[in-house]
């Protein structure tokens, strides 16, 4: 294994710092983020308000009246040197088959996206639903699952102006990422489909369906199946379940 570059510690205003391990979607970078998250959580520093692990950086919200940025930076370096407590998120990863209605009323941007890439809608759906995706992080909105593993030829820059509202359950593409949305949201991503699975339900335990380290595959379903499944899920007749743990 090659020597890894030390992370950059970037101020994010006066009440947060970002520890940036890289700028790309990469499993080993994500593993280092999650490791620092665990060691700083274990350190329980006074003045650290909240931590947000992402694909490639850890955002640390802090109260500068309780801990100075310099003291926090020293603590971060100590955690980086000492390494993380044992146990990795990936070892608890589960496998999911997630049903998706692609295009039409479910994915308003599918035809536009097909045009951009010079592919048929069917080819986009086949490519998107044949890949295996890793859940890198939960963020943006409650339960919103950010996925890595988008096939290279589906990479698409975000819309230049975000939409004010997109539906819950949207499956979308933004840059090199794909995602499953949880609640209605503004978004600059391309909406290619929608799942009837609720990835966030405040009345369910756990409230989030997916966890970082989980693996997702999408299955294309037609409108009739989509509505039938949505109805059964809503009535509580079925509950989304993972297929099993990853090896």
């Amino acid at each position, binding site marked *: 294994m090659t020597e890894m570059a030390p992370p950059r510690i*970037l*101020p*994010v*205003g*006066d*009440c*947060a710092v*970002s520890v*940036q391990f890289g*700028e*790309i*979607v990469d499993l080993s970078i994500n593993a280092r983020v999650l490791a620092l998250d665990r060691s700083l959580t274990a350190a329980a520093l006074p003045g650290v308000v909240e931590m*947000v692990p*992402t*694909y*490639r*950086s*850890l*955002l640390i*919200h802090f109260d*500068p*009246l309780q801990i*100075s*940025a310099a003291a926090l930076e020293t603590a971060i370096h100590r955690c980086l040197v000492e390494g993380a407590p044992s146990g990795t998120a990936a070892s608890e990863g589960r496998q999911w088959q997630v049903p998706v209605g692609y295009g039409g009323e479910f994915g308003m941007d599918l035809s536009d996206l097909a045009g951009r890439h010079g592919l048929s809608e069917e080819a986009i759906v086949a490519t998107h639903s044949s890949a295996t995706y890793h859940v890198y*992080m939960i*963020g*943006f*909105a*409650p339960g*919103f699952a*950010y996925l890595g593993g988008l096939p290279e030829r589906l990479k698409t*820059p*975000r*819309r*230049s*102006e*975000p939409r*004010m509202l997109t539906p819950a359950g949207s499956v979308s593409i*933004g*840059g*090199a*990422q794909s995602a499953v949305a*949880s*609640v*209605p*949201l*503004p978004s*600059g991503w391309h909406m290619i489909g929608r799942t009837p699975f609720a990835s*966030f339900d*405040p009345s369910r335990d756990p409230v989030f369906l997916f966890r970082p380290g989980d693996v997702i595959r999408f299955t294309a379903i037609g409108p009739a199946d989509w509505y039938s499944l949505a109805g059964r899920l809503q009535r509580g007749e079925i509950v989304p379940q993972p297929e099993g743990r990853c090896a």
Partner: protein
Amino acid sequence: MDPVSLRIANRLAGSSDGAAALEVGGPGVELLVDADVVTISAAGPDMVWRIDGVSVAPNASRTITRGATVTLRPGRGAVYLYVGVHCGIDVPHVFGSSSFHVRSGVGGLAGQPLAVGDVIPVKARSSPELELDGSLVHHADDSVIRVIEGPQSEHFSPAAWETLLSTPYRISARSDRMGVRLEGSTLTHTDKGYNIVSDGIALGSIQVPGNGQPIVLGADRQTTGGYPKIAVIARADMFRFAQRPPGATVRFQSISAEQGADALRRLVGYLDRLVLRSALPVLNSERLLGLNLIDGGVWE
């Protein structure tokens, strides 16, 4: 969105800093008291309120009784006012907060914003009537907002940074608790572009999507996002920024993170030294008869 006015509203109501209160935007609200007695407060820049049609001093608390009607309106040059209730509004804590998050429907009353006819649960208790001694800290030059260079400054040319600091930006009407959109000179990305692999977002982050028009992320912001952030508003100025109404302009001024922390320390010092004075009660026979003095329910 304006934690300073919220804190002042809670202090005026004799409540703890974290007590649940109402944030009132738009044209305002009318409340009908359906409790024997309650002390309520109102705070916000240039706010206006009346009890049974009688004008009340801004940034004050009053003890009122069943049947009273309270009308409240945010200041014309502001966006929000805050209504505190003695002992706080009685809502359950969800994920450690009594706030309501509109987009996810989490918290608050019945998972929805307040609507006409809703009942706001309070404890029927009173505390002394108070007024803020002096004016709100908001009345410093509200149009100058201090910022700290953001974590993706490399996605912008020096010219874009210069533009952000030297030209005015207007608050768009397409703004809410999640994001305040700004309209002004276009901020151009370098060839690193306007897509980043999503990272965390701090309160007050100024993200710039591909159209070059900045968006300031507010209290209900997303936790993570993928547009580059050119700057972050100093925490000590965020409450003033949040009170700038649509159509108003702001100018940004660059400071360091250390200077931001110092400014925050001074703001917290101001809040710690807040002087609240007793409201001089206007006693007339109607008011005396209206208060239930016999069982001591007014002054604890």
